[in-house]
């Protein structure tokens, strides 16, 4: 049995390790696209800020980890997959045969189609190589324009601010991180950034970028501003890496369409992580979540079903995020935006940058978001994921949302709390 994994991010690495756990004899090959050991994009901002060296971003730290598990790392990029002959072609022409294939090829940062987007000193911030370029091109005082205040944009913000650059963020939505914040919270994050000396332009976007020779780039916005920039960083979005699957017959929508066993539309081809359009726990819909915990769980689940056949169906992953925007920590879980016929409890302390929002359906927590909270935030996942009935605690939380941890202990862990274990 030869398992081949395309991709060496969290989904690919966890899948490889679990394939080995479930099958000690199989041949396992993992294709690594970039010319570095498997690393975590999550850790790149901390590399950018200088807290860790490049090695600090590696997914596995032990020397010889993959060799010890008899997992073969092969550097190369897939250019085509043929499910009929069960073969992958690499750029350069080499062909690898598989018995079962996992596509965990992740995503790539995109650039908006505007004039000047391919000029020099315009970078994405997605790969370790991108991070190296940004580090080399910026010094304290450099004028940096960040396009996009989404999740990735905000994470980079921290690193850029710490590098002492003169920073302007341009976001087309009316607030920051609109995919994980409501208007109150997104505006609080914006105010926080402005207080930190970062210029934030919302509800506008970059219309063109010009290079006037020796002077820095000129960035024009739709609302008529012209801003000088030494470096432009593009964090406007990412796209699943599926181009090499064209013509393979593997169905692709926003990502690779998978069933509840992480199998694609084609037999013996599975998908996991940012490239997979997997089930969302809250909605039951199939959606590219593109988050680290989901990539890990996809990887484990795909490995399980690749080895044992389709025996473990996927209940879906809870969408969740945690974000540190220049020291202000925010989280969001599940249906943080609320559900039809649901109820909402909100606690807001705008001056102190603290906010908590809980979303209920009947007496079950279905979504939550928080700002400025760092203690016991995981209980929000615990309550949502288990669907625990809050009973009397629902009313208490409607009045005092910040009693969420107590509500969790009293309901989700009721057996632990109410009765002394024997």
């Amino acid at each position, binding site marked *: 049995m030869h398992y081949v994994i395309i991709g060496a991010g969290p989904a690919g690495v966890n899948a490889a390790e679990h394939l080995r756990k479930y099958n000690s004899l199989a041949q396992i090959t993992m294709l690594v696209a970039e010319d570095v050991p498997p690393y975590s994009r999550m850790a790149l901002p901390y590399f950018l800020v200088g807290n860790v060296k490049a090695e*600090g971003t590696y997914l596995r730290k032990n020397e010889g980890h993959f060799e010890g598990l008899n997992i073969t790392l092969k550097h190369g990029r897939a250019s085509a997959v043929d499910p009929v002959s069960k073969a992958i072609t690499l750029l350069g022409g080499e062909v690898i045969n598989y018995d079962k294939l996992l596509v965990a090829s992740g995503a790539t940062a995109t650039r908006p189609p505007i004039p000047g987007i391919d000029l020099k000193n315009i970078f994405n911030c997605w790969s370790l190589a991108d991070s190296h370029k940004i580090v080399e091109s910026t010094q304290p005082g450099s004028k940096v324009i960040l396009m996009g205040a989404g999740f990735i944009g905000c994470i980079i913000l921290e690193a850029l601010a710490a590098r002492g650059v003169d920073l302007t963020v341009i976001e087309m939505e009316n607030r920051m991180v609109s995919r994980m914040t409501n208007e109150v919270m997104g505006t609080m994050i914006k105010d926080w950034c402005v207080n930190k000396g970062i210029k934030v332009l919302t509800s506008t976007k970059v219309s063109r970028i010009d290079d006037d020779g020796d002077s820095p780039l000129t960035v024009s916005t739709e609302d008529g501003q012209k801003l000088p920039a030494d470096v432009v960083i593009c964090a406007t979005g990412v796209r699943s890496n599926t181009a090499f699957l064209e013509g393979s017959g593997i169905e692709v929508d926003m990502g690779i369409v998978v069933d509840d066993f992480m199998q694609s539309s084609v037999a013996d081809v599975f998908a996991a992580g940012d490239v997979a359009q997997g089930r969302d726990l809250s909605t039951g819909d199939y959606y590219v979540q593109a988050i680290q915990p989901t990539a890990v769980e996809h990887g484990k689940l795909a490995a399980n079903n690749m080895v044992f056949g389709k025996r473990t169906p996927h209940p879906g992953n809870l969408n969740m995020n945690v974000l540190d925007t220049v020291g202000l920590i925010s989280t969001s*879980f599940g249906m943080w935006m609320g559900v039809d016929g649901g109820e909402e409890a909100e606690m807001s302390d705008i001056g102190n940058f603290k906010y908590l929002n809980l979303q209920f359906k009947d007496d079950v927590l279905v979504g939550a978001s928080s700002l400025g909270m760092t203690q016991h935030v995981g209980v929000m996942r615990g309550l949502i994921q288990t669907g625990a009935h809050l009973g009397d605690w629902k009313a208490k939380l409607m009045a005092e949302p910040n009693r969420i941890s107590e509500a969790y202990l009293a309901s989700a862990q009721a057996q632990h709390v109410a009765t002394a274990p024997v």
Partner: protein
Amino acid sequence: MQKSLHIDPAKCTGCLQCESACSLVNEGTVNPAKSRIKVFSFHDEGRFVPYTCTQCDEAWCMQACPVDAIVLNPVNGSKDVLSDVCVGCKVCTIACPFGTINYNTSTGKVVKCDLCGGDPECVSACPTQAITYVDANATGLDKMRAWAMKTDNAGA
């Protein structure tokens, strides 16, 4: 023989000496806000519930960590944070469905209970034996772990 913390809320008087001991030993300061064990007060019921990591088998925190900074301690069975490897991304704090791994804003790292390397200070500090350190089979740990499995997406 593996041991684990056994918490009996019925015996807890809410004195918070566990929190003081934990923060003093692990953070060098008597500051309950930095304790890895937290006593929740249910005032309307006159009840106190000490709460910390159960060192669950699933180890959501360890699985979610993108940089291998949380490791299994083979002696205690505890899941320990390697502070020098942790980058402070906080993914573990949302992944843990128990909420028992938390971000420390002053160090920029996450912290969790590591059973003090096998001699938990909260146990020594507790005057009423509400927190004891006993053979894992006797603690109802299996029951809690069974509950933990309910949040497992991958099965095994």
